[in-house]
């Protein structure tokens, strides 16, 4: 019975999201600086350019795998070289690696020039729900990162590689993966914020 009510709450509570604490509603926090349509169109055009000039789709997740392999090479060179993944994707500075480094700098420039540099360890909507412990935020974000990277490698890409670059090429794998991203993400986010 308790399970049943729990399940019912799980289904119903998200629907009543409007009635929730205003501090747990993303709409009560500052919105983006630019229209999502301008930004989306910009990323679309950027894709044309990366395809044309670099013969690469936009993607981010492989950066972290490359970085993992580079660190692995420092501590266990031989073992790292024997891993199946690094045989096909050698952990060396490559296009995707530089691309993500530049992404960090690009966001820094945008934040500084737009007066949006936040300089904070715990996001306000997180602390409204879970308090302002950096340790808790760090532990959950870290655990999320582990799951996310593992999922990205298994699925073959992330929100950029599959979610944007793959879907625009009408890649079936990407449409399936992106559906998974959102189903998994919505389910866990609802649990986190509504339970």
């Amino acid at each position: 019975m308790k399970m049943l009510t729990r399940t019912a709450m799980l289904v119903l509570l998200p629907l009543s999201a409007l009635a929730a604490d205003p501090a747990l509603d993303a709409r009560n926090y500052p919105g983006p600086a630019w229209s999502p349509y301008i930004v989306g169109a910009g990323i679309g055009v950027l894709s044309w350019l990366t395809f044309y000039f670099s013969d690469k789709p936009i993607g981010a997740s492989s950066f972290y795998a490359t970085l993992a392999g580079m660190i692995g090479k420092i501590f266990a060179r031989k073992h790292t070289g024997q891993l199946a993944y690094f045989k096909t994707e050698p952990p060396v500075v490559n296009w995707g690696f530089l691309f993500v480094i530049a992404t960090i700098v690009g966001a820094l420039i945008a934040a500084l020039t737009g007066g949006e540099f936040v300089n904070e360890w715990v996001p306000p909507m997180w602390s409204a729900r879970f308090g302002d412990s950096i340790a808790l935020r760090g532990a959950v974000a870290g655990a999320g990162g582990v799951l996310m990277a593992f999922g990205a490698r298994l699925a073959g890409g992330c929100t950029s590689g599959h979610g944007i670059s793959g879907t625009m090429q009408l890649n079936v794998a990407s449409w399936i993966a992106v559906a998974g991203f959102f189903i998994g993400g919505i389910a866990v986010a609802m649990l986190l914020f509504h339970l």
Partner: protein
Amino acid sequence: MIDPGKAVKESSVAKPPAALSPKLIVGALIFGLAFGFLLQKGGVGTYHILLGQLLLQDWTVVKIMMTAVVVGMVGIFPLHHFAKVNLHIKPTRLGPNIIGGLVFGAGFALIGYCPGTGAAALGQGSWDALFGMAGLVAGSWLYAELSGRLKNTVEKWGDLGKRTLPDVLHLPRGATIAIMVVLLTAVLIALERFFPRSS
């Protein structure tokens, strides 16, 4: 006019990892800068905007993604038709695509950033992204560690090879693109109507 396929440049051939030419380096840096700039301006380096999407409160993320897909596809396919670009199609493997997708999503909700937007978050001084990025490196290592075994198990489940929507829908490529553009645009219009976001 768009129904290519035969006469075009061979696409998505696995090539040996190219050495980084100066042209590639400059491209990666300029395009990466632009990507990070756009992500930050679009607000998707921000925790509450990303979580807001997963809580179905703020539709910024989906609006950006769908717009990028529409604009991207109306450029990429004509470019491919005239043999100016290669396509980069990843193989469809139902098992890993679905399981990996769901695991990724669960992680997404916990970290509140994705691999690209996490980089943007770090750039705008959201330091908690560092924990997430450390986790991403660890998770990548975990995958690499298991990659030999995964290759022969999960990654074989439901392997359909390189498939595109025109293949599975049995439609010409041009028609599929036209349908997708109309469909995604209609969704965007509906989203803007029902979930506007005044900044």
